[in-house]
């Protein structure tokens, strides 16, 4: 089932802010400890403009930022210890960016998320590969989205307070790997059906006329239906055309069937492997990692599909192949 998520990424310099013991800095973002000399904790803030999520309950919100050694992350040998910090959101309906004032002076949510993690990236991948930290900010984002006047398209600011992290300053404003906020509106289960069966048919009565041909050794007058080669009580597909075609790989080959409805067709594809005489039935699909008797695998498969419309019987194979077909007059519509 579809579990809709929304991702928003800061777009402007005024979307980032941090402060340490030296001062505050608009247009930059950091978390963790400040440098070796000041030793102070960093408070970072990040602003997400126009969050298109409706008011109400969310299932999850996560803040992602880049912490790997390339980009703006800090090399491994300069890291020391784990992160430990708490996160709050600005408790406003539609907060502004950080150009006007220090965001830490704004009203903050009661709800607080926190994170105490290794300084290594999460193993889960993020954009452009692994190297990201994912921190749940569900509680504080939820509090904002519960506000009576929250509307889709409003903005959110997150405030990150370091709690004596042993891990040095980490920036997350690399142009190629900008921090982002992911919001999952709901967690719906994978779709499964409510099934209603189609009832059994009523078969025609076994009238005492017509043609019956029994298996050799069975009395045609007493043979059961399963002991008959043929009976006019049932239908038989009737061939109106048969022939050979040569397909081009991944190209639909059409054979006009001359009817104004969709008839039944049957086809067999000859393996194009040099020296092979194998003829497989269509449709044929080679799934998974297995290999077929001629060595074709799912990476380089010999697959074949068959379909009909009101004008054509259509064959499509993944390789140029000889296909032998039968077209029947019997209608599939």
């Amino acid at each position, binding site marked *: 089932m579809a579990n809709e998520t929304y991702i928003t990424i800061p777009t402007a310099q005024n979307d980032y802010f941090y402060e340490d013991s030296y001062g505050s800095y608009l247009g930059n973002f950091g978390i963790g400890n400040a440098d070796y000399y000041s030793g102070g904790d960093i408070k970072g803030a990040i602003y997400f403009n126009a969050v298109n999520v409706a008011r109400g309950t969310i299932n999850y919100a996560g803040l992602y930022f880049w912490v790997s050694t390339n980009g703006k992350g800090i090399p491994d040998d300069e890291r020391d210890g784990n992160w430990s910090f708490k996160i709050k959101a600005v408790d406003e309906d539609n907060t502004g960016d950080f150009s006007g004032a220090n965001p830490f002076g704004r009203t903050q949510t009661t709800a607080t998320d926190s994170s105490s993690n290794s300084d290594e990236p999460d193993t889960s991948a993020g954009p*452009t590969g692994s190297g990201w930290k994912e921190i749940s900010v569900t509680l504080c984002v939820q509090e904002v989205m519960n506000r009576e006047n929250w509307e889709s398209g409003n903005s959110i600011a997150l405030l990150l307070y370091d709690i004596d992290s042993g891990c040095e300053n980490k920036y997350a404003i690399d142009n190629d790997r900008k921090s982002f906020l992911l919001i999952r509106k709901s967690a719906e289960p994978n779709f499964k059906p409510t099934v209603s069966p189609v009832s059994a048919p009523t078969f025609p009565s076994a009238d005492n006329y017509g043609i019956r041909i029994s298996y050799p050794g069975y009395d045609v007058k007493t043979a059961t239906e399963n002991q008959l080669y043929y009976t006019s009580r049932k239908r038989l597909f009737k061939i109106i055309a048969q022939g050979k075609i040569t397909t081009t790989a991944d190209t639909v080959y059409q054979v006009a069937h001359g009817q104004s409805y969709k008839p039944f*067709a049957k086809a067999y594809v000859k*393996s194009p492997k040099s020296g092979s005489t194998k003829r497989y039935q269509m449709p*044929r699909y080679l*799934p*998974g*990692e297995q290999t077929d008797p001629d060595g074709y695998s799912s990476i380089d498969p010999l697959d074949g599909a068959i379909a009909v419309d009101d004008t054509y019987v259509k064959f499509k194979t993944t390789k140029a192949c000889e296909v032998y077909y039968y077209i029947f007059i019997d209608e599939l519509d």
Partner: protein
Amino acid sequence: MANYGIKISKPSSDVKTATDKDVIFTSKYRSLKVLKWGNFTFNVPDTGNYTHTIAHGLSYAPAFDVFTKGTAAFSFLTASTYADAWFNVGGSNRWFQQDGHGGIFAYTDSTNLTIQSVGVFKSTTITGRYYIYVDPCQEYTSTNNYNLTGDYGMKVSKAGQDVKETNKEYNMAFSTKYNSIQYYSESVKEKNLTLPILFASPKDMTPEEATYVDFTHGLGYAPYFQAFYETSSELRQLPYTLNKDYGDYEYDPNWNAFEVSAWADATRIRVTFWRRSGWSWLGDPMLNVTWPATTINVKVFPFAENLGGLSG
């Protein structure tokens, strides 16, 4: 066509005016004629590789059908399992061994019908049913052919062929020498199946969805069957599978993501419509295999032939 031959119409339908497609039998058109049929069983060794051959005695590769029997199980949909279920050979079916892998191959050449396990079913007993037709699945015009030995019964040759020419059995339109795969028109049923929109996300990396319908066939045994699904423009024969992968840089050979397939047992023919989506952080924009809400019409032809019935 000249006005001769045999024609049998449906009850209460005038045989003199019934259209060709609506008659039960007409000697104007040929039918597939079953030369040899029966059940097979073989044990696959630890290697997973085994080749089982059935000589057909023809000098060309004949048309054929092969079904395998097993337990149908698809835990995503239900904890129930269904013993003695029959599957078409050659395509993907998520109920077969629960992983969608066919693993069993069938093919003919001018000597044998071959049923082959390639590396998948290790230390497993494979059972199934085969039908070999006298009708070829290749171009063939030679007289080096199966001969009619029982010179009795009814034979109808195709137009332009001498019905007495017994060394071209494949030119017969109909012959009482051969078995027929027949069906009741009343058995043909159809129904819509609908799946809602499906897309993945960073929190749901590989969501799935599936629905199915059971066509109760009323035969009391597992029948030979054909199944189809209909798009807005065409009918596709099952099993039908479609791949969508994340992109060239993250190809996953297991990423079969769309399947319509069927199996049969003594009660039902179950047609399943299954899809899977996938999320990848790679690429720009990030990749999300998305399926729109879709309704398909599925149709089954349960034939009267018993897949566990008599051999011949």
